């Protein structure tokens, strides 16, 4: 018989609720195939995590190449072709291989069934298929690189993409396959949310991250097929000369943009909604206070998912579409700003009178509030027709979407990663290095991208290999910011890597959360829970209190019965 305090082979002090060295999902079976063919959502989530982080590294290196090239006008590292391929690679990798699957497929896969108190997702085999489709898509991206690269930009605008001599077909095939990977995850999450909720968990007892993942899944299933069709048409045009988008073949170049943004605008919400969900969790848990305005936050996620489908034309204000369409799309675009604003106010109200921890996940969450505010407010500039015409395709737009995608989604992803890390690995990271990473990334990010708002308002066009001398200073500052950001990521990677080597063992509930994943051990057993967990209000933290001896939170009633 062993007690929780037993020290085992080199492990440091083991708090109750920690299962390292005992039975857990990580050691339930061994060998390569036990991972490659696993049906366990937690293992699939981890495989996704490692894979998308590898993609993120690739996309990040491409970004550093781009920023370094731009440190001076003229040629710095390579020629214009190299530069065009580098920014295409950066965009395509970050969007399709990292940020779309990022939160849902990696973090979401791990936590969604845990949040539900379920054993797994509804369709474990579909889940595994989704992962391997991702790998297939990634292989096609590598093939396109090996066969000469692509220089179309991640948007594949026709007729450039139908006429360039670079490897468009492999990468488009890759994106097509990745689309199915995304659809599979979405389908799985929809069914899981509907069917696997425990008996006493109604829709309005779900943690808000589930509302976000659910809304995301709906968009994934409804919007992604349109991208798939569009890409098939593009392949047909290139491979068989069927005129669809290329005016030289009798096609319509702007039609492609309608099709493309009909998917890619909702895809922006595939990227940001799960991030908002994570922030709702982090803000509440690290304030030890019930989330404010649960119903409004939940409905705002659904509203964003719906409005997201009817605003795609705002990417095309200068494309030559009719003035009437421009007016309609501009008006609809502003509708998206309302639910986003609602979330911000509710998060601030949650902080009010809270017990605000400065742990790493919370620092990321607070960064998110500020950065997403900037990203959202600068979106208002771009929704105003006359102002957008001036700013369209300048660095202002580049800065705006990086504030939303990076300042928003990537920051929330990191917050979520540090938050659930102890649950995934059973280890704590060092708060010192974690906080340092949050600070460095915050500073580096703002240095890189805030100056790009000024650059864009001065008229600097995007996707420029070379630029007029008057823009040089801004580009230099931006490049230095990029290096600081990269340093921040290295510190974050170091923090997590060191935690695996010599991190303290994590208790079941290090943060005092009350959603169901904190009701099981760290890491969880193969089937997630011993017995059926009882769900109550996920934001009522009253049942948990801090315990110095476990350096985490324990249930008050557990102590009473002990």
């Amino acid at each position, binding site marked *: 018989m062993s007690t929780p305090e037993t020290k085992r082979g080199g492990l440091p002090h083991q708090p109750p609720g920690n299962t390292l060295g005992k039975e857990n999902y990580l050691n339930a079976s061994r060998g390569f195939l036990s991972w490659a063919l696993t049906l366990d959502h937690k293992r699939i989530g981890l495989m996704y995590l490692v894979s998308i982080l590898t993609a993120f590294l690739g996309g990040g290196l491409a970004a550093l190449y781009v920023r370094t090239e731009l440190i001076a006008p003229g040629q710095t590292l390579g020629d214009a072709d190299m530069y065009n391929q580098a920014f295409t690679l950066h965009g395509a990798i970050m969007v399709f291989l990292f940020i779309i699957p990022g939160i849902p497929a990696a973090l979401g896969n791990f936590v969604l069934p845990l949040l539900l108190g379920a054993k797994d997702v509804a369709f474990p085999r579909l889940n595994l298929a989704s992962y391997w489709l991702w790998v297939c898509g990634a292989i096609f991206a590598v093939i396109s690189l090996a066969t000469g690269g692509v220089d179309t930009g991640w948007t594949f605008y026709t007729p450039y993409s139908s006429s360039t001599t670079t490897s468009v077909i492999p990468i488009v095939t890759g994106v097509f396959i990745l689309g199915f990977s995304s659809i599979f995850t979405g389908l799985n999450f929809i069914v899981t949310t509907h069917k696997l909720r425990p008996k006493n968990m109604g829709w309005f007892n779900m943690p808000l991250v589930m509302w976000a993942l659910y809304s995301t899944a709906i968009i994934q299933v409804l919007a992604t097929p349109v991208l798939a069709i569009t890409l098939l048409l593009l392949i047909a045009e290139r491979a068989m000369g069927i005129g669809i988008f290329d005016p030289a073949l009798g096609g319509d170049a702007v039609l492609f943009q309608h099709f493309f943004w009909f998917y890619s605008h909702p895809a922006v919400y595939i990227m940001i909604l799960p991030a908002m969900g994570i922030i709702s969790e982090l803000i509440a848990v690290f304030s030890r206070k019930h989330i404010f305005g649960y119903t409004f936050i939940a409905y705002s996620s659904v509203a964003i998912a719906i409005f997201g489908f009817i605003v795609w034309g705002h990417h095309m204000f200068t494309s030559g579409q009719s003035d009437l369409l*421009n007016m309609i799309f501009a008006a609809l675009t502003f509708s998206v700003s309302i639910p986003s604003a609602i979330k911000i106010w509710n998060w601030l109200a949650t902080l009010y009178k809270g017990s605000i921890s400065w742990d790493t996940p919370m620092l990321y969450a607070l960064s998110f509030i500020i950065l997403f*505010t900037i990203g959202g407010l600068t979106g208002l500039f771009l929704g105003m027709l006359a102002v957008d015409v*001036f700013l369209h395709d300048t660095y202002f737009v580049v800065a705006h979407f990086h504030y939303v995608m990076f300042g928003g989604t990537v920051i929330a992803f990191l917050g979520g990663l540090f938050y659930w890390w102890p649950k995934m690995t059973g280890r704590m990271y060092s708060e010192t290095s974690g906080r340092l990473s949050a600070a460095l990334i915050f500073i580096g990010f703002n240095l890189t991208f805030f100056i790009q708002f000024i650059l864009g308002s001065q008229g600097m066009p995007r996707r420029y290999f070379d630029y007029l001398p008057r823009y040089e200073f801004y580009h230099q500052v931006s490049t230095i910011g990029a290096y600081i950001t990269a340093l921040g990521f290295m510190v974050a990677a170091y923090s997590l890597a060191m935690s695996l080597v010599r991190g303290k063992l994590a208790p079941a509930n290090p943060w005092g959360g009350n959603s169901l994943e904190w009701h099981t051990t760290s890491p969880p057993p193969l089937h997630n829970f011993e017995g059926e967990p009882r769900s109550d209000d996920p934001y009522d933290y009253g049942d948990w209190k801090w315990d110095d001896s476990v350096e985490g939170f324990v249930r008050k009633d557990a102590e009473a019965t002990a």
Partner: protein
Amino acid sequence: MIDVLASILQRVISIPAGIAAAASERVWLPRSVSTFAGDIDFAWDVVFWLSVFFFVLITLITVYFMFRYKRRTPDQEALPAPDHHLPIEIAWSVLPLGIVVVLFWQGFAQYVNMATPPQDTYEIQVSAMKWSWLFTYPNGAVTNELHVPIDTPIELVMTSSDVLHAFFVPEFRVKKDIVPGRYSNLWFEATEAGDYDLMCTEYCGKDHSAMLAKVTVHEPGGFEPWLKEESDYYNKGWSMEEIGEKLYNTRGCKTCHSVDGVNGTGPTFLGLYGIEHALVGGGTAVVDENYVRESILEPQATIVAGYDPVMPTYQGRLSEQDISALIAYLKSLGN
């Protein structure tokens, strides 16, 4: 590698000078030099100051709460506070709605002005191609820099002979995509004489960032003499070689074909005439009059080995006389 690092280091060292230079200019927006630029800047100012207000408000609240309610001991609990409050939530959902209606209206009203050209505009045809601009004036004159009279509404009728491009002059606050297979229109009225930068803002491949041109706004009375001077190559007493050189410089040839022996996107013109080319797909061709003519009018018909088929056709954009002049120029570059 070392020299790259050295140049990067040198750039970093020069940054303080850059700060001083940047501080002496306006931070946001370039000068406004068109009749509607001022209105657009007003719309910008509205949304700018509104954003500054909300950014400062939200950041101050966040940072204040972060310090005011900081958790001092791990067991510190939150203070009692409500977890919902319907009137407040309705207020902060509805009030922003009013604000965005104002923003939409500001943006739309100014846009309508930009989108509707006045009655009597001076029309200039714009042809965009990888990677140069061609401007055709009502009297048939063609240039690759844009010249316009001051205080005159100018309407551009634009088309592209290959891929998407876009016309953008920051000081005029105008931008419009140029789409192959259709015309797009744009108008502006410049209010200050001088030279401004025209930039392509729709990604169009390798030399996208080099697809620049100057826009010269002439003082009152300066435009017509310039146009007259510019108009007629064949009555200036120029030789065919000189006319060919002028066409070479203005019609986009020089973007891809050098005359200094360095091959670019296309083969150099230096010593090209009379040599024998290897072709893509096998075979050879001698560069003679007929070959040059075919290459200009049907550039995809024969492709020289080692090059991509990227050249747009000049069918309808160069007269037979122009082609003869270009051939004469090519011959003058030797073989």
